[in-house]
């Protein structure tokens, strides 16, 4: 049984870490981009961002004033039980979100879509989102918070098999060029691409590809992995850099996730996870132990399974 007070306390720490500490994989990716960038203005912007990450950590203040829309991805092992059950878990995550909004402080971004009511705590109807995943074996809970920002950089297109890879490239470029202008996508970004599923799941896949995979990770399907690298290079060949200035740093990494779709279609979504790629992860065990990390490790073989059955004992060690 996982103690609920440790879940809430850990969740509060994660909110703070996500807002303030740029994940090392993204930082390394941005440093690599800065090293090759030769556009005058783009270079200046990347240098300023590197300085900004340092300032955020030194001052323990949020790295960006738009602290995004906090959400939770929760994953559990098959044997996990939470003290107080799922209702207590959700209450703890809502409390942590509200407390951290005032504590860090974060910007209270969440408002009612029509009445613009702001509770000043990032909590409201459907906010924060809480999504779940499960793994075979183990008694632990992974708490993953992502504070993705932005009104720009995300789009969906219904493609068809006849659109092919060139149609995928076309939509990818359309998104990067349109949202990259004036830097509205807050690039260079981790670009997540969802392919397949239904319209809603396609959006979910793309968002998770952007937010739940680290820079440098590759899809386990080698042909998809190859396409990821190709799209990364294509994005960086547009001639556009940070803030839409002339440059070559648009994409820190391109991540693709797929889901089986309707036989006649090839749904595609594109998501840009910005210069402040806010994500933080912790695993809480039944004995109260907490391990912090920045890799959500969401897309395990189990999450990408294609088969009807899953052979629990054989895959237990790998997935837990």
């Amino acid at each position, binding site marked *: 049984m996982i103690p609920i007070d440790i879940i809430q306390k850990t969740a509060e720490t994660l909110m703070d870490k996500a807002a303030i500490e740029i994940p090392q994989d993204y930082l390394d990716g941005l440093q690599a981009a800065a*090293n090759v960038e030769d556009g005058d203005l783009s270079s200046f912007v990347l240098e300023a961002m590197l300085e900004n990450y340092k300032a955020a950590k030194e001052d323990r203040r949020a790295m*960006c004033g738009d602290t995004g829309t906090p959400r939770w991805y929760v994953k559990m092992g098959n044997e996990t039980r939470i003290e107080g059950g799922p209702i207590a878990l959700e209450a703890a995550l809502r409390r942590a979100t509200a407390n951290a909004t005032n504590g860090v402080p974060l910007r209270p971004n969440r408002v009612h879509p029509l009445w613009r009511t702001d509770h000043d705590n990032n909590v409201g109807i459907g906010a924060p989102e809480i999504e779940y995943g499960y793994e075979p074996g183990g008694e632990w809970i992974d708490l993953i918070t992502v504070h993705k920002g932005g009104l720009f950089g995300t789009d969906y297109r219904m493609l068809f098999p006849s659109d092919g890879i060139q149609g995928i490239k076309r939509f990818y470029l359309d998104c990067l060029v349109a949202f990259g202008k004036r830097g509205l996508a807050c690039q260079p970004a981790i670009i997540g691409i969802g392919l397949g599923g239904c319209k809603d799941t396609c959006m979910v896949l793309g968002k998770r590809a952007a937010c739940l995979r680290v820079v440098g990770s590759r899809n386990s399907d080698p042909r998809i992995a190859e396409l990821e690298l190709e799209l990364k290079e294509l994005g960086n060949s547009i001639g556009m850099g940070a803030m839409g200035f002339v440059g070559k740093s648009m994409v820190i990494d391109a991540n693709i996730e797929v889901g089986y779709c309707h036989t006649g279609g090839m749904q595609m979504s594109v998501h840009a996870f910005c210069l402040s790629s806010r994500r933080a992860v912790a695993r809480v065990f039944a004995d109260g132990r907490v391990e912090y990390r920045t890799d959500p490790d969401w897309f395990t073989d189990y999450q990408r399974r294609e088969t009807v059955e899953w052979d629990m004992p054989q895959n237990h060690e790998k997935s837990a």
Partner: protein
Amino acid sequence: MGHASKPRKIRLSTTPTPEALAELRLGDVVYLDGLIYTAREGVYKRALEDKANIPMELPGESAANFHCSPAAAINEDGTFRLGAVTATASFRFSKWIGQWMAKSGAKLIIGKGGMSVKDYQEHFVPNGAIYLTTVGYGTGALLGRGVKRVKTVHWNKELGLAQAMWVFEADNMGPFIVESDLAGNSLFERENAKISANLEKVYEGTVPAVLKRFGETDDRSDEMIG
């Protein structure tokens, strides 16, 4: 970092003289001193549509309008805790900006992504104003460091923390980049034009989507933010 040359750095008052503004060139990096206030859709609607009295002396106290909501909180004793400060995209405020400038005398509009050249020509040039863009986006922690203190916050009860009118004392606050000059030229548009020249090559071999949807455009000059 490669072969990039460094842009010019300039200190500027938030109640700038016309001469100081005339000195600025597109792409200059600016650091601000003086009072800055935040105003975005909430403040614009309240001041311009609901005709509420602006609770500051403008532009005497400040001629710098920041399109911003800070990551900040008000303590129980009425003091403030300010963390990071970054801008929100400005092009959405086009419908109010002319009227706001006339009413507030703002000379510096600070935000994200700039506004259209049409807005610069119609509203900024006649009012002797320029646009400063934040950098990144965004350098929230650096800008937060540049706020010496929060002087006050107006209309937080009416508008909520995110839309309230925050008043900051800026001390060498930056970096910002000069996006428009007194003649209404735009740095973003200049860069867009250079990048567009390469687009045909990048797009080579790709195909338009089989399903064409009403409302989508293939005409690059037809986008809302060009």
